[in-house]
């Protein structure tokens, strides 16, 4: 079949800027073929190349004694002792989910699970951080239903427990929802698989599902802004098959255990192109692919389509040749395709053959190493104006405004659609703080959380970025876990706008500062830019996924207070009301500065809680919604009333950082106070859990009525 002529229009349609095309010509010293243009555009788009963010990502701390492998592989690898490792990453599937919510979200889960098991780990936990437009927007209910259903359909069938996440609504996501999927897996620390090929003449093997035309150009689509032509982009969304993925998982782990695998890479964005280039580039080798051998599910596919297809549930592997028969038998057992589609070669070439023709012949190392990198102009986000007069509101009315909003209501409508217990190791289900999953067959456990407060990041990118890290760290501490490391999923608008780029730069600086101060390195991550529709950007949303270790199941801190327990706050309460949930939900005000994060206090207060955990019956971090919301959530979960002494709105709903709410028996509260005094940690008694009433400084309401509102508001908002 004749390939189209290379024209300026065709180049532009591939999302390639004129200077980028000039660079391409300089590298290959001739006009590219159509297939070659497709390959370059796939490798050089924002999604695959991180060309706008790389300069700043490099500033993040990524190492530590616990880190086995930081960013650059499919996922980060962290030591959890006893020769075991946890492998995790978070990744966005924003654009596909907006176009086709069910499949977009489902394949987001599929992709992140593959990233984890490609490295030899069995997935043990998933989480999802979701941001939608206002519930009143005509698309929102449809998107929420589709995304949640898609996540459930894929994760439940695959068999990974979904143990946490976030759901938020804000008008800035009206035209651009965010779906950030996290997965973590478990492996032996000495049996991690990487993507670098080694050895010349080694067979390159294609595994998994067949290649179709779905998702051709998906990565390029994900690197563009939306406009009113998005309906035309539906064919660029892939279709997921969790059944095939589950079989692929089992077959891959079986094959890895056999010792036949030299290197492995999943086919995600830009499919065959990205995976083959990655393996060759990291191994300093060339790759020859014979596309006539690629298993296809449609007739007449061109080289261009095969190289850019984003069909799901596929892997590329470099195999030890002498183990080929055994490897093939494992894949036949699982009824999956297994085809030798090429080999590693000594020259620096990416050679694509199809129908006895050379469709592409490119210098492989140049495809990723020569990707453009931009130092985009940026401007510092201006300081927020001081917060003006806050309207008066009674405490219970304020609490009702929060728990009656889908942002802070009980989210069972979402998580009851996810299997949170498959594997039978889930120790703490979704709903309060971090999810906790036992390390199978051991008395250790891992804690998982995902956090960000986009309002803060918009008002003050540096503090907002630091706060997202600090909140994730606190959520891990609050269940008794030692925070180990984090993954970041940076969702921003168009980086070509200096103000947006300024948000990215500020947030990354804040994330870096917090990660350094808390010894909480970033070991993997993903950047999603161009989250804009018709020129309006989303709230900057750098989601932080955190992982912590409980060395013993006895270290687990409950979220449920006992009747008669005293309520105490670790950390200082100043009553910071700028950018709070209260202002946003009760008054529609998003003003003032974000709360500032004192990283020294964060660390000190967290370490104090971990050291004192035996004195504490229950704990929760204090974040958006402040003391009043956290106390209500704990009380409601336990079915016990709570009485807080202060009726001051700042004390109740202020969002000062470095704070935890803990419940203690009266005797333990005294011991905790003594320990706090000795450690120089602020500790205040703020109330008591008892009865069947919620009382905030004397303003009171029955728990049952508040609970009914809290448990119905989400479903009503999205119905």
């Amino acid at each position, binding site marked *: 079949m004749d390939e189209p002529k290379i024209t300026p229009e065709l180049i532009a349609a591939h999302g390639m800027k004129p200077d980028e095309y000039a660079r391409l010509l300089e590298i290959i010293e001739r006009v590219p073929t159509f297939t070659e243009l497709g390959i370059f555009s796939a490798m050089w788009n924002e999604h695959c190349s991180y060309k706008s963010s790389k300069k700043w990502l490099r500033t993040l701390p990524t190492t530590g004694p616990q880190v086995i492998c930081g960013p650059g592989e499919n996922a980060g690898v962290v030591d959890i002792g006893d020769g075991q490792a946890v492998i995790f990453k978070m990744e966005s599937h924003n654009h596909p989910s907006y176009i086709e919510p069910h499949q977009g979200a489902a394949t987001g889960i599929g992709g992140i699970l593959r990233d984890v098991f490609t490295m030899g780990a069995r997935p043990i936990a998933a989480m999802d951080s979701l941001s939608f437009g206002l519930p009143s927007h005509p698309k929102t209910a449809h998107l929420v239903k589709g995304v949640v*259903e898609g996540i*459930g*359909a894929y994760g*439940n*069938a*695959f*068999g990974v427990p979904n143990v946490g996440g976030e759901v938020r609504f804000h008008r800035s996501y009206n035209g651009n929802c965010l779906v950030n999927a996290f997965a973590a897996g478990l492996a032996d620390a000495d049996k991690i698989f990487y993507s670098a090929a080694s050895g010349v003449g080694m067979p390159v093997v294609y595994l998994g599902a067949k290649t179709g035309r779905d998702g051709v150009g998906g990565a390029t689509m994900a690197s563009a802004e939306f406009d009113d032509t998005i309906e035309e982009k539906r064919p660029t969304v892939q279709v997921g*098959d*969790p*059944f*095939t993925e*589950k*079989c692929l998982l089992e077959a891959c782990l079986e094959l890895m255990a056999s010792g036949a695998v030299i290197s492995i890479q999943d086919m995600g964005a830009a499919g065959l192109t990205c995976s083959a280039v990655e393996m060759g580039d990291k191994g300093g080798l060339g790759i020859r692919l014979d596309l006539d051998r690629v298993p296809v599910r449609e007739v007449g596919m061109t080289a261009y389509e095969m190289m850019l297809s984003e069909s799901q549930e596929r892997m590329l592997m470099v195999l030890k040749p002498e183990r080929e028969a055994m490897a093939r038998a494992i894949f036949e*057992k*699982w*009824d999956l395709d297994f085809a030798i589609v090429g080999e590693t070669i000594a020259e620096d070439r990416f050679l694509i053959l199809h129908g006895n023709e050379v469709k592409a012949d490119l210098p492989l190392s140049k495809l990723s190493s020569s990707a453009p990198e931009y130092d985009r102009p940026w401007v510092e986000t201006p300081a927020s104006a001081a917060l003006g007069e806050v309207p008066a509101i009674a405490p219970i009315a304020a609490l009702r405004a929060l728990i009656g909003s889908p942002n802070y209501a009980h989210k*069972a409508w979402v*998580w*009851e*659609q*996810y*299997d*949170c*217990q*498959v*594997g*039978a190791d*889930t*120790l703490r*289900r979704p709903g309060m703080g971090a999810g906790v999953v*036992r390390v199978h067959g051991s008395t250790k456990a891992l804690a998982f959380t995902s956090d960000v407060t986009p309002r803060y990041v918009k008002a003050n990118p540096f503090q907002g970025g630091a706060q997202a890290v600090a909140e994730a760290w606190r959520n891990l501490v609050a269940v008794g876990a030692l925070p180990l490391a984090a993954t970041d999923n940076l969702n921003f608008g168009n980086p070509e706008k200096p103000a947006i780029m300024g948000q990215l730069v500020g947030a990354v600086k804040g994330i870096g500062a917090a990660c350094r101060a808390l010894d909480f390195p970033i070991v993997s991550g993903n950047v999603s830019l161009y989250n804009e529709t018709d020129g309006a950007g989303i709230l900057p949303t750098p989601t932080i996924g955190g992982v912590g270790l409980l060395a013993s*199941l006895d270290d687990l801190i409950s979220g449920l207070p006992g009747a008669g327990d005293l309520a105490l706050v670790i950390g200082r309460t100043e009553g910071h009301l700028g950018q709070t949930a209260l202002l946003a939900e009760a008054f529609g005000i998003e003003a003032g500065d974000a709360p500032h994060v004192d990283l020294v206090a964060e660390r000190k207060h967290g370490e104090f809680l971990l050291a004192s955990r035996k004195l504490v019956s229950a704990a929760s971090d204090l974040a958006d919604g402040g003391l009043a919301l956290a106390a209500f959530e704990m009380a409601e979960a336990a079915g016990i009333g709570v009485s807080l002494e202060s009726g001051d709105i700042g004390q109740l709903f202020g969002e000062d950082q470095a704070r935890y709410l803990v419940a203690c028996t009266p005797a333990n509260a005294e011991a905790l106070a003594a320990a706090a005094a000795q450690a120089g940690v602020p500790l205040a008694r703020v109330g008591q859990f008892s009865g069947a009433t919620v009382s905030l400084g004397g303003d009171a309401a029955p728990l049952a009525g508040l609970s009914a509102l809290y448990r119905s508001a989400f479903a009503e908002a999205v119905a």
Partner: protein
Amino acid sequence: MLAAVITFPGSNCDRDLARGFELAGARVVRVWHKETALPAGTDIVGVPGGFSYGDYLRCGAIAAQSPVAGAIAAHAARGGFVLGICNGFQVLTEMRLLPGALMRNAGLSFVCKPVRLRVATADSAFTSAYAKGSEVVFPVAHHDGNYTIDAEGLARLQGEDRVAFRYIDNPNGSMDDIAGVLSANRRVLGMMPHPERAVEAVQGGSDGSAFFRALAALTAPV
């Protein structure tokens, strides 16, 4: 006591079910669905939860045609014990080892949560550890757990005391709140809730321990 736990492609509670038996002291052999015979000495077959064959066509329909299905049917015909949980229950109805069918949940959504169950009969090896009428909490996690049967079949189940568990707060629209049913010889049980997810206190409840202990005690451990 030897339990044969089946793995179909797409099964994802097979390991959990095997562990439930093992914690109770049973010996477990894992059986791949392409096998045509069960291990010698199999006392009970465990058909686990999950999404066998992706739940394509109908939940359990393709698994019911799997090579191992013939061996399970023969085991049941000999009077052997068979336990099907969640997808396993769906498989057993598709194999016609149990009457009725599991339809899409009345709420049309997947539902995962702990549910309270009433033990409807103590007259079976599976439920002998519980008093009739007592309450247990097991998690459910399914999209198609809405038990349906014709009026005559329902009357027969009720008349022969073959409802093993009933939901106290019906999560899926099942007829007569049925969560689990027994075969006519009371040796095949299918149930949607997951007792294997409730065998240790740290999982949030251990009401399922007695269930597996009763099964493990059926014959002397080897």
